């Protein structure tokens, strides 16, 4: 495929679901179906890749109150 930026998992997954729906439409011209299938495989690979490499990203907002949390760790 072309040098498209890697989409987010959610975006790729949503597109994949759409492609399935389109593929299930039997009126689809063959060429388009093949194109969709290829695109679907590509998205599915991206999704798998993202799932395997995912790391929980944790950011912290700067605290509005002082860091006197009180609760023991």
């Amino acid at each position, binding site marked *: 495929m072309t040098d498209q930026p890697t989409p987010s998992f959610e975006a790729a997954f949503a597109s994949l679901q759409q492609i*399935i729906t389109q593929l299930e439409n039997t009126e689809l011209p*063959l060429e388009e179906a093949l194109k969709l299938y290829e695109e679907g495989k590509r998205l599915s690979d991206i999704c798998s890749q993202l799932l395997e490499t995912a790391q929980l990203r944790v950011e*912290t*907002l700067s*605290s509005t*109150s002082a860091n006197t*949390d*009180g609760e023991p760790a």
Partner: protein
Amino acid sequence: MLEFDFPPLQPMVFTVTTLTNYLRELLETDEILRDVWVRGEISNFSQPRSGHLYFTLKDNDAQLRCVMWKGQTFRLRFNPKDGQSVEAHGAMSFYPAGGQVQLYVDEMQPVGEGQLYQEFLRLKARLEAEGLFAPELKRPIPQFPRHIGVITSASGAALQDILNTLRRRLPLARVTLAPTAVQGAEAPGGIVGAFQSLKTLPDLDLIILARGGGSIEDLWPFNDEAVAYAIRASHVPVISGVGHETDFTIADFAADLRAPTPTAAAELATPITSSDLRAELIATNQLMATSLKSKLTSLRQDLLLAENRLQRHSPAQRVRTFLQFQDETRERLERAMSHYLAQHQLKLQSQVARLESVSPMAVLRRGFAIVTDAQTHQLISRRNQTSPNQSIQIQLSDGKIAATISGDTP
């Protein structure tokens, strides 16, 4: 009752047992002392192997020995320790062996808890009346949150529980922590502020409001009405996970979903896990392949049908048909021709025969001859057409001869 024997001058002497029994009877039959609440600070607390609790309740000026039998301790909702102010309920009696008046405790709570509980019930009733807890206000929890806001203490165990759970279940998610104090007087304001900070994140899907277990006072910030309003004003659904299974706070009632613990909150926040997604991906791939395969199969069938139809209407077929037709035509033509020829052959033969029959040659063969003038080729059939020395031609059956008339002429 004791009997006072005469003479009165002689003072009455009791045994210790008799006297202390009397004292005990007095205490145990007293309307007030047999059912009494007392407030004080715990000291000399001890809990031997027997499981009974022994301690002293004191204030600035006095102290009172207390005992709580093991069988009663299961009702305690806190762990008593020295220095704690408590309200204890029980009956006063005298312990002869120890020589002490003491309180036999059957119920005990930290000071203010009863008051706090009343306060809690009042606030809950008021907010309920305002409709803040109405079931129709509860927003559905997203199935697949990408961005989760967490409001809790940055140093608390609750945060680690939540992060570990999210890491295990859905590492695809993004977490933004809005750190705040979760106990003490500043906590409600901090929690409200955290909600406001998270409101600046438009792509947030969900907020977890959490705190680890603690005493009722520790959890008190979660019974604050400002916190309840902040939960309802949140731009995304809120899952509360405060304290333990048995703890219910105002925040739990206001939240869109109440989880019994911080870990459970993180679980409820991720109904779909990475492994679910993995399985779904596999299924999706299969579905896609099946779809395409069935499409190809049906196209192949269509193609076959079309090919058959095409075959039937192909020019080659038409040419074949035409050629066949042409062959037939040619045959017919030839048949017709030969028939025609045969017919005419017959006719011709009969004509030839007739012709033959009238031919002068036939007469010549019988011995007649045709005489013509050699110059004029005029047929000579009469004498007067002749003259002496005239050159003539005589046609016989097998050829001509030239002759000259020598004889008489008219």
